[in-house]
């Protein structure tokens, strides 16, 4: 049984309880349940902060409602008459609340954040693949698929030509049109990647739900669900950077 995983991943806020500094009763993450006083911030992840499981499909309307409710309750004005410690804690928790909300409401940031707290750094993946290739003597598995690389390379060649022409004061409508078309294709790809990412959320969430129901989830299943999202985010970032380069070249 992967019991340690379960407690580590599906921790609702009520699990992170300690006794209140003021009245001694048990409290939730931000306020004492008994006397309602603000508490010092505990080092919790953003999902736990909102009392959410580590699932990627999030009810955004409920999240927003929660955010506004907590914003009011955690506002430093509420404890203006309180002790300096209370004011400090209120401020700490407000800032944690803002960071948590900003991260969780955005689909890409939410996924990147989840992957990070699950132990994945996007760049590390690339390094690990290089080490593996070096040790086994095999070619490195490219995170970016070869056909996309070809496309990226060709487009960069065209952009270079465009910059040269602009420098010489020349104008090539055909080239501009070609680059414009390529840019559209990339933007569509960027959108498609977000749709694909959302499709992968379901895989991940199913694993978390299974854990919530007491089923064991193997580390391998976890890794697979995670790596699919890592691959996709890497590709998406690549395309995003490229679109940015195209825009810069066109504007210059």
């Amino acid at each position, binding site marked *: 049984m992967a019991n340690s995983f379960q407690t580590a991943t599906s921790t609702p806020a009520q699990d992170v309880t300690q006794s209140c500094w003021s009245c001694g009763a048990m409290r939730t993450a931000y306020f004492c349940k008994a006397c309602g006083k603000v508490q010092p911030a505990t080092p919790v992840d953003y999902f736990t902060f909102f009392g959410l499981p580590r699932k990627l499909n999030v009810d955004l309307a409920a999240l927003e409602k929660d955010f506004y409710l907590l914003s009011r309750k955690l506002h430093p004005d509420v404890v203006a008459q309180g002790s300096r410690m209370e004011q400090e804690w209120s401020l700490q928790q407000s800032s944690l609340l803002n960071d948590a909300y900003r991260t969780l409401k955005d689909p890409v940031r939410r996924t990147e954040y989840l992957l990070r707290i699950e132990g994945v750094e996007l760049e590390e993946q690339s*390094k690990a693949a*290089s080490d593996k290739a070096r040790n086994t003597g095999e*070619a*490195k598995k*490219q995170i*970016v698929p070869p056909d996309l*690389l070809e496309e*990226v390379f060709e487009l960069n060649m065209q952009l270079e030509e465009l910059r040269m022409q602009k420098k010489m004061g020349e104008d090539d409508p055909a080239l501009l049109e070609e680059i414009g078309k390529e840019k559209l294709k990339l933007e569509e790809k960027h959108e498609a990647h977000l749709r694909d990412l959302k499709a992968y959320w379901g895989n991940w969430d199913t694993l978390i739900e299974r854990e919530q129901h007491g089923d064991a989830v193997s580390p391998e299943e976890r890794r697979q669900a995670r790596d699919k999202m890592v691959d996709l985010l890497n590709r998406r*970032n*690549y395309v995003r950077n490229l679109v940015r380069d195209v825009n810069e070249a066109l504007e210059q």
Partner: protein
Amino acid sequence: MSYSDKVLDHYSNPRNVGSMDKSSADVGTGLVGAPECGDVMKLQIKVNRDTNVIEDAKFKTFGCGSAIASSSLATEWVKGKTVDEALSIKNMDIVKELSLPPVKIHCSVLAEDAIRAAIGDWKKKQQTAQPVTAEAK
């Protein structure tokens, strides 16, 4: 951020920029990219079939100064080496030679990947294309 003199030298005066015929049997092509920064690097080698010595190398890199310098240096280093010798070039060798800061280490990783990819492509061609080219000659 300040680049080392060696990086600046390779950047403003890159060696072996260009391309070779991708379809040629004695040319290996490595095309690699770093999604973290959006760099893309193409490195090509021309190998003598009898001696396995890399006789020529070309590159074209779109990316930051460190990526350009790393690939420029890589082409200089692989030239004159056998394929197996070239495989022993490690990214940390490039880091040392160019005094790359930690945030630019991934550029050197990319250059090492490009060398490996180019050699891998060439090796694959030798396995599959040899009978065909032998007949053609």
